[in-house]
């Protein structure tokens, strides 16, 4: 019993900043700055949400702050997230399946290369890529950001998918192969349906990691494309806590929903397929 109380109080500490954030977004400017903070008893106020979405036509923004149309920020994040995750999946499925089934000379070397790619400080990719993108006009485009996020998520996708394919019995492909099916057909018709749960998990985790990525989105997106973390970093110059809180509350809801779907496989995703829950 003591153990349970202790565990729940620890969970409370970890959940508290999120709770604090969400309540702050509904506070008016007086409750927001009161110390000790009003955690439960405060007047609920939706004005921050109206301003964050740009609904409130009456309120003129100071041009130096810029206008905050959260819907377009969420759209940017979704386009980049879904686009890059789809591309990651296509590349990852073929590579992951091959890694799972075949044995070849450079297998270990390639896996180490993939892990080394996971280690790269993203700034060391972003600076050279900025110049390359500048030359081929990919700066500030969805395609440019989708490509770099695809690369960032590839180590996760390849190694995670490999671990999911490893769980599909090899007997299945061997029997089908003896029956005369082509290898690509075996993958498409037999293996992918068997591993579709794992593929969905990989897809959602890739979206989450694209959603949270910061430095590449900052340098490749410039004026037109701002993903949610970039908008957050700009917003700290706006001294309006309720807007900050409303903005962050809305921007974390999609990832919370996604993570609750894949919770059972989250640890496996975080450890690139090595630790299973």
């Amino acid at each position: 019993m003591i153990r349970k109380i202790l565990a729940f109080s620890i969970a409370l500490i970890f959940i508290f900043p999120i709770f604090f954030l969400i309540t702050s977004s509904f506070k008016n400017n007086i409750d927001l700055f009161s110390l000790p903070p009003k955690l439960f008893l405060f007047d609920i106020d939706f004005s921050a949400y109206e301003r964050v979405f740009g609904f409130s036509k009456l309120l003129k923004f100071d041009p130096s702050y810029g206008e905050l149309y959260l819907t377009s920020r969420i759209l940017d994040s979704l386009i980049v997230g879904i686009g890059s995750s789809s591309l990651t999946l296509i590349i990852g499925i073929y590579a992951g399946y091959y890694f799972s089934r075949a044995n070849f000379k450079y297998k270990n070397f390639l896996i180490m290369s993939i892990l080394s790619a996971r280690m790269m400080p993203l700034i060391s990719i972003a600076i050279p890529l900025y110049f390359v993108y500048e030359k081929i006009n990919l700066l500030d485009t969805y395609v440019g950001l989708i490509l770099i996020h695809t690369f960032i998520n590839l180590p996760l996708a390849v190694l995670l998918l490999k671990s999911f394919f490893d769980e599909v019995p090899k007997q299945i492909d061997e029997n089908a192969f003896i029956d005369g099916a082509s290898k690509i057909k075996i993958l498409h018709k037999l293996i992918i349906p068997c591993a579709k749960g794992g593929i969905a998990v990989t897809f959602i985790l890739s979206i989450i990691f694209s959603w949270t990525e910061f430095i590449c989105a900052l340098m490749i997106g410039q004026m037109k494309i701002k993903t949610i973390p970039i908008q957050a970093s700009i917003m700290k110059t706006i001294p309006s806590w309720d807007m900050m809180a409303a903005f962050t509350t809305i921007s974390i809801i999609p990832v919370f929903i996604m993570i609750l779907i894949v919770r059972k496989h989250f640890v496996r995703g975080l450890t690139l397929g090595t630790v299973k829950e």
Partner: protein
Amino acid sequence: MAAQKSYSLPSFMNSDSSLPWLLPLITMLIVFAIIPFFYNIYLSFHEFVPAKRALLFVGWDNWIRLFTDGVFWGSLKVSLYYTFMCLLIQLVLGMGIALLIDSDDPGFGIIRSILTLTLVIPPAIAGMIFLIMEDANYGLIPWLLKSVGLIGPEDTILADPTLALWGVMIVDIWQWTPFMVLILVAGLRSLPSEPFESAVIDGARPFQVFRRLTLPMLHKVIAVAILIRGIDLWRMVDYVFVLTSGGPGTATYTLSLYSWQRFTFVQWGYGATISLFSLIVILIVGNAFIHFAKVKW
């Protein structure tokens, strides 16, 4: 060849050319890892010269500047300190909490779900949450610390050269301790129960069981957790960007942030040199760690 046969993999794949299966992956690795790596080397020997409005060859200048630049050494120290301290605190806290909630009771399952939530918050957003909570005048955390007398009434957290880094680290510890907890719990849950039962029968004390049984059996899981967390701590930039922008002064510059900041000051070559240094360090340390800790994929 004999060693390869012992894997007993289906032979039908081995006869195949690997190229069609792996070509997209290898292309991505070349375009986004190999080319940027060599471009970085190229940039580290060049610098943008404002007078001529061009990127010119400067020889070893950037590297000499790197090793004589006090701000660079400061940021290296910050990165090292940040990585080691956060890793240590998160591992110890994570292990403690993991042992606490390692149970079949469904109530603990809810706790694990709750702990998952912090991990998916974009770090920049987590920084924003703590920016509000650590505000010098109206923030909750300074108010709490002042109430219990840990800091003086005039002290601030994020504007104080010695406290600012801890103000950043607290966010990392809050957000990523659950990472350790979840991985370690998954490891603990997968351990067989027989050795533990017989140890209890033999009268071993809990601490002995932990040192002699749990830790060695969790070795692989702990190594993976340290590797992945270490990589992400070393390249962390989001928190300092949002919370302090490297300040006060240069007290919280990490290597990645300093590199980014030089880049925005149009010192492209020098910025690239810093990022290249950080890249080489993590590649050597990371691969050595994988080798010596015998982490297997």
